[in-house]
């Protein structure tokens, strides 16, 4: 029973961060209508920013979120403005080419990271890295708990932005009907660039909060792109609520699989669920909740 509770709690806590990754992906998918295959790579960039800040400047990884998030935000805005948007404007270019472009961006980011930081596994050691809170046999890891709380705040913040502000409404409007939005004076081009930035800023935050928990190496990027992809398919394409449920389901599948089957196949469990969803519930969890 304790083992079950322990897995459940760990799964939920990691699920919060996965949800943030999924939300960033859904947001970009909703507005740009493409799958961002550089998603995890941008997260990896943010993680290296935080790691460098800790390693060279001695800045606590949680504080370095004020560096990694803006850095990734502006990097993503730059990438979408000069590499992705020019591809939308040309009618002769297939939309698929934008997806290919994100693949290219992802590869360049990974190899740049390998060039600058080598392929060595990195991690940060802080006073709280190994700390846990003991609740009668079930222990809650402090870094994971902090990460979970931050991800709740980010999710709430994102929903406030999307539902209650003009900017958020413009983003949703552009996702629903680009032409009508431009008739309302919303520049689709600016919204596209900004959305790519915001989506990337979200995963940058997730990446920084993962840093005290996971190892960091250049190929962590593609792994998280795959996870983000699984989360969005699980939740249902383009659904924000689905991204949250998708994130939690994936995290639970991984933790329970690791606990009861074998921890060596941790990354496989999510993919098994992914395949099952594709076969039996093609619309994702969204088709159950209708949101």
């Amino acid at each position, binding site marked *: 029973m304790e083992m079950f509770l322990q897995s459940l709690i760990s799964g939920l806590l990691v699920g919060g961060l996965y949800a943030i990754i999924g939300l960033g992906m859904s947001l970009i998918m909703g507005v740009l209508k493409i799958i961002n295959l550089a998603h995890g790579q941008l997260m990896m960039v943010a993680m290296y920013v935080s790691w460098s800040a800790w390693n060279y400047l001695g800045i606590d990884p949680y504080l370095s979120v004020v560096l990694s998030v803006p850095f990734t935000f502006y990097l993503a805005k730059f990438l979408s403005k000069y590499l992705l948007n020019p591809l939308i404007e040309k009618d002769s270019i297939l939309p698929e080419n934008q997806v290919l472009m994100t693949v290219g961006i992802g590869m360049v980011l990974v190899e740049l990271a390998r060039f600058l930081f080598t392929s060595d596994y990195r991690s940060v050691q802080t006073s709280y890295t190994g700390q846990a809170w003991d609740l009668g046999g079930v222990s809650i890891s402090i870094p994971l708990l902090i990460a979970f709380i931050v991800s709740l705040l980010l999710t709430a913040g994102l929903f406030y932005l999307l539902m209650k502000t*003009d900017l958020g*409404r*413009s983003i*949703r*409007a552009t996702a*629903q*009907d680009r*032409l*009508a*939005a*431009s*008739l*309302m*004076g*919303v*520049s689709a081009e600016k919204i596209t660039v900004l959305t790519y930035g915001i989506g990337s800023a979200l995963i940058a935050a997730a990446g920084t909060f993962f840093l005290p928990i996971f190892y960091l190496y250049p190929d962590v990027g593609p792994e998280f792109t795959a996870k983000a992809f699984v989360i969005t398919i699980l939740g249902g394409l383009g659904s924000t609520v689905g991204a949250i449920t998708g994130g939690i389901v994936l995290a639970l599948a991984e933790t329970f699989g690791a606990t009861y089957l074998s921890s060596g196949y941790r990354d496989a469990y999510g993919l098994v669920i992914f395949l099952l969803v594709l076969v039996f519930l093609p619309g994702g969890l969204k088709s159950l909740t209708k949101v």
Partner: protein
Amino acid sequence: MLKLENVDMSYGDLQVLWDVSFEVHEGEIVVLVGANGAGKSSIIKTISGLQKVSNGKIIFDGADVTNQKPEDILKRGLVHVPEGRRLFNEMTVEENLIMGALWGEAKEKRAETMEICYDLFPKLRDRRTQLAGTLSGGEQQMVAVARGLMAKPKLLMFDEPSLGLAPVLVQDIFDIIKSVRKQGITVLLVEQNVQATLKFCDRAYVLENGKIVMEGTGQQLLNDDHVKEAFLGI
């Protein structure tokens, strides 16, 4: 108020507007009539900046707005209610109206204009928290018009507002357009419902194959033999 001078426009290699010139004066209801594919919607899209002019000039309110961005044209008070309504279906009625008033004066007076719109369309007040996609066709058209009004337009352009509506609703839409004019807003209307629109408009232009072939008051065109034959089936 709005003046097009010898405007040419092409979709890629295909030229669809040829030397189009016309004028809309302040306070008028002007209609562009023509068959399917005559270029009516293309004219509206060109005026609102969605399509680039290849030759010629568009002047609005004394300023040259040729090939300006849609958002800049909108901010001048030249507002386009698109064909097929194009609402934001997954947003509430109220959010759709808010989207109409994102800039400048329209944004400052948002709450006030919204009240005016709800007074004009009391049904929308009841449905303001409902998703726009769940409304009936007539109600959706009301939202589309109200969203246009939210932008505080000087000139409101309607692209086929009666398209896809039941005949009883078509008359309602035309009544709405007349009430829009009563608020001091100039109207440019594109319609396939030639007979009904010619009856209440001030002036009309007839479009064929991307060229303006005839102009006159509504009554003049209603009595014109060519118009009768081509559009009214008499």
